[in-house]
C-alpha cells in the first residue's frame, strides 16, 4: 500500500514535470520574435529589416503571387517561397553587417531588381 502511494506520487510529479517542461518549451517558442516578409513581383515588403546579433528570430516569408526565392549567402539563407504560400525559417545571425537579400527564383522581367536589406546589429 505504502509503495503504491509512493509510486503514485512519483508518477504525478513526473507528469507535472513533463507538463511544466512542455509549457516552458512552448513559452520559449512563443517568445521567438516573428518577422513577416511579403514577396510580390518585384519587391519584398518591408524592404529593410533590422535584427540583433545572436538573437533568434523566425522569418515568415509569404508570396502573394508566384514562386520566389529568398537568398542571402552571408546569413546562410536560401529559401523557396511557393506561389501563394508561406515558408518559415528560424535564424540566429552571428555576424553584424548589412546584407542584401535577393529573390533567386526567376519570377519575371524585373526579377533582377527584387531585393531587400537585412541589417544585423
Amino acid at each position, binding site marked *: 500500500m505504502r509503495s503504491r502511494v509512493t509510486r503514485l506520487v512519483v508518477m504525478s510529479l513526473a507528469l507535472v514535470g513533463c507538463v511544466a517542461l512542455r509549457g516552458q518549451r512552448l513559452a520559449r517558442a512563443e517568445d521567438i520574435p516573428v518577422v513577416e516578409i511579403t514577396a510580390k513581383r518585384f519587391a519584398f515588403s518591408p524592404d529593410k529589416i533590422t535584427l540583433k546579433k545572436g538573437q533568434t528570430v523566425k522569418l515568415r516569408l509569404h508570396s502573394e503571387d508566384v514562386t520566389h526565392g529568398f537568398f542571402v549567402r552571408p546569413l546562410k539563407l536560401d529559401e523557396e517561397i511557393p506561389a501563394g504560400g508561406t515558408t518559415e525559417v528560424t535564424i540566429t545571425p552571428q555576424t553584424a553587417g548589412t546584407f542584401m*537579400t535577393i529573390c*533567386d527564383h526567376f519570377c*519575371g*522581367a524585373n526579377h533582377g531588381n527584387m531585393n531587400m536589406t537585412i541589417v544585423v546589429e
Partner: protein
Amino acid sequence: MKNTDRRSFLKIAGSSLGIGVLYSAYPAARAGGEVGAMFASLGKESGEAVTPFSFVQLSDAHVGFNGPPDPLGTKAFERAVEMINALPQRPDLVLFTGDLTHDTEDRNVHVERMKQFQEISKRIQVPMIRHVAGEHDAGLDGGALYREFFGESYYSFDHRGVHFVGLDNVSRAKPEVGTEQLAWLKKDLARFSKSAPIVVFTHRPLFDLRPDWEWFTSDGGDVMNVLSGYDNVTVLYGHIHRDDEHQTGNVRHYAARSLIFGFPDPTGVSGPRKPMPFDKEHPFKNLGIRTVKFNGKVRPGSLPLSIEDVELTAREFQGINGVQQLLRNPKV
C-alpha cells in the same frame, strides 16, 4: 615541353570585338615536327585532329527589351551581325551564351521574340551557330519554349578537335545546374583524357562572382569539380553584361559583354546592381563595342554611327594566357 617553347609556335588569339569575342586557335608556324605531333596528339584525344579555326561569342541580346536604360532595341545585335560578316576571316562558329530574348508572360509575344532573334541571327554568315539559354529565355517556363526553338538546353559537340559543352544553369529557375545535368556532364567527358581541349559555354558564371547580384551558380562548385579533372578547359559565359576574366584552378573563365546594356564593375559597389546609363552620344558604350567614335552626323532612322567608327580592339594572347589554355597542356 616548356610553355615558352609552345609559345614560340602556338598563337591563339582572343580578340575582343566589342560585339563579343573572337577566339581563334592556330599554329603560328604551320610546320610539321613538334607542331604536327602536338596537334596529332590532341586529335587522338577528341577523335578529330585540331585544326585552325575561329569562333565568336555573343551574349545577352534580350530581343524584345525596349526602354531605359537602352532604347535601341535590337540595334546593337544587328550591328554585331554586320561586324561578324565583315570580319576578314570568316569564323566557323558563333556561340550565343544566353538571354537571346527578353522574357514576357505572354507566350505569343515570347514566340515572336524568339522568331525575331532567329531572323536576325540567321543573317550571320557562319556555318554553325550554337546557343544556350539565359534565365530570360527559360526561367518562367522551365525552358519549354526555348527547347521548341533551339533544341536541348544542354548538349555537347566536337569541332575541329575541340570539345564544346553547352550547360544550362537557368531552366530550373534558380541559378543551378542540377544533379541530372551534372551526371550527364561526367558521362559526356568520360571519353576524354586529361589533356583534351574543352570549351564550356553557359549563361551564368560557374563561380561566385557576386552572389548578391545573382552572379553565381549555386552548384557551380560541383561543375568545377568535374572539370578539374581536365587540364585544358575554358568557360565562356554571359549574364553579367560586361567583360570579365577569372581563374579557378586550371580553368579560365571569360564573360562577354551584352548587346543591350552594360553593368558596372561590381568591385567596391555596395547595394543593388544598377545598369550603366545610356549615353546618347555613344549609344553602344558599355555594350560590347569597346571603342566607338561618334561621327557627329545624325541621319533620320539610323544611328549616328558608321562601321568605320567602330574599332576592333585586339586582345591577343600568347603562351599560357587566355584561350590558348585550350592547348596549354598537350601531350607531345
